[in-house]
């Protein structure tokens, strides 16, 4: 808290010094309110993304083409649920409550990654999500392993390991498709065509249009800019697509020897803004599914509470 009479809060200087020297801020440390709020927003969005992300992949559990793939997919979706819970816990160390965060999600006040508002239409999409969506997530998260808030950084380290495994699995699915029949390869290409641009959008607006970024960089919540991360993702994905023999649906994509990076076309930001506003193909469906799970399950949660209370009362009685 800042005292208007006495100039800058000395705690703020100490906080910034810790951040600047790559120290970690821990739950009981003093921190600026805006830092706390930014973190809660970001971590809860991340948690929401894990939870909502279960839906497009869960859509294929029933139809996975082999038992091995089915087991891997169930395990992956289960991991995502675990990541979600882990991240909600990290946000709770900052004083947020999970129920409030989930309510904010279902009321549409909180955001989650726009990528999960696209539908999974073919099995290839399960491969593509692993390859591109988890791939993009990892690039974001690797950077976040060095984020200034301790619990978040530690969550990221753990999550990154599992995500790498998921990404490899997804890529393997595509390898099988691309080494398979013509129909399988076509399925892979069609999937890439749908997911490529939405994947690039996962890094957020371009730096020119990312107003909160500077403060987040100063606090070392963010370690790299949106555009830097996006470039890293493109550079990483192009040779992977080449290995698969797939064509990235961007006519402007080409190697720039001078920059040592791939140039690529303009991300369709209009679409991004529409999806962000709630107008993606599946926004309504994702929210409705979450709401339905919450509402249909209310009686179960009430029963669990009622039973716990009964038990506690009985224990008290027998202790007395």
């Amino acid at each position: 808290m800042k005292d208007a009479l006495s100039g800058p809060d000395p705690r703020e200087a100490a906080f910034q010094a810790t951040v600047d020297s790559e120290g970690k801020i821990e739950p009981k440390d003093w921190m600026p309110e805006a830092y706390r709020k930014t973190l809660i927003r970001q971590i809860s969005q991340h948690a929401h993304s894990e939870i909502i992300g279960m839906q497009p992949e869960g859509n294929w559990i029933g139809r996975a083409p082999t038992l091995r793939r089915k087991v891997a997919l169930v395990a992956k979706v289960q991991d995502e649920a675990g990541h979600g819970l882990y991240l909600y816990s990290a946000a709770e160390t900052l004083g947020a409550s999970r129920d409030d965060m989930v309510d904010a999600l279902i009321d549409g006040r909180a955001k989650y990654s726009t990528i999960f508002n696209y539908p999974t239409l073919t099995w290839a999409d399960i491969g593509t999500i692993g390859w591109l969506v988890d791939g993009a997530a990892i690039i974001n998260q690797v950077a976040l392993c060095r984020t200034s808030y301790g619990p978040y950084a530690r969550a990221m380290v753990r999550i990154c390991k599992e995500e790498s495994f998921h990404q490899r699995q997804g890529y393997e699915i595509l390898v099988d498709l691309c080494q398979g029949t013509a129909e399988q390869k076509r399925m892979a290409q069609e999937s890439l065509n749908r997911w490529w641009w939405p994947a690039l959008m996962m890094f957020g607006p371009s730096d020119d249009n990312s107003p909160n970024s500077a403060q987040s960089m100063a606090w070392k919540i963010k370690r790299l800019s949106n555009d830097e991360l996006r470039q890293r993702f493109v550079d990483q994905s192009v040779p992977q697509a080449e290995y698969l023999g797939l064509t990235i649906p961007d006519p402007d994509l080409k190697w720039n020897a001078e920059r040592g990076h791939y140039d690529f076309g303009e991300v369709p930001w209009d679409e991004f803004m529409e999806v962000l506003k709630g107008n993606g193909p599946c926004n309504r469906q994702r929210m409705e599914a979450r709401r339905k799970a919450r509402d249909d399950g209310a009686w179960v949660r009430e029963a669990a509470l009622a039973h716990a209370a009964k038990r506690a009362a009985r224990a008290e009685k027998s202790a007395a």
Partner: protein
Amino acid sequence: MTTVSNDDLFAYALRLGDDSLILGQRLGEWCAKSPEMELDIALMNTALDVLGRARGFLTYAGQVEGNGRDEDALAFLRDVEAFGNVLLVEQPNGNFADTIARQFLFDAFDLPFMEALAASADETLSAIAAKAVKETAYHLRFSREWTIRLGDGTEESHARMQAAVNEMWPYVHELFEMDAVEERLCAAGVAVDRAALRDRFERTVADTLAEATLTRPETSWRPVGGRHGRHTEQFGHLLAEMQWMQRAYPGCTW
């Protein structure tokens, strides 16, 4: 010790695989729909365990059969009448209480079953079962606790849990059914004597229902037929979904 015929062993491994596979398929339908995220994780976890043993049983069935069918050929390229799972595991998920009732009744049978199968003279079956015992003990703890929690929770949850137990109960009898295949395998020390498990099953059920303030249903209806391919109408819809990819794109590697 009697010699074991490959036909019998194939049929046995297949039906055990089918029990696990179909239960796993049903559990997978809960993904992202559970009352709590923790329950999503728990149900997925159970799904993983039973799908894992389905793979073991079906792979073994294919080896015993010796016609080159692997786990996927068996899971994805048979039609309704060739599936030998009990009717209990194919029952639709219903509400959470229905799923818990199905799971609890299955687990209460499955734990003694897997313990007995772990002593099978057949090494492969024994190995799968040995692993399954630990998993199932955990499943049973989970489904038993939730049966109690819902039964002895609110008025609404009590009513739902009782209705769910009533709904699923008729299907338990089939779990104890022995046919000629199992009789022969049992005599050879390979298969489990299901009838011998009934007492322990009934004790588990009685204890749990008592703690859950629920009543053991009495019904004269004892549907059977699953072991011989006579399933419910819902089962064909389950297969249409589960087998879609292998049916739509035959002969591919995935």
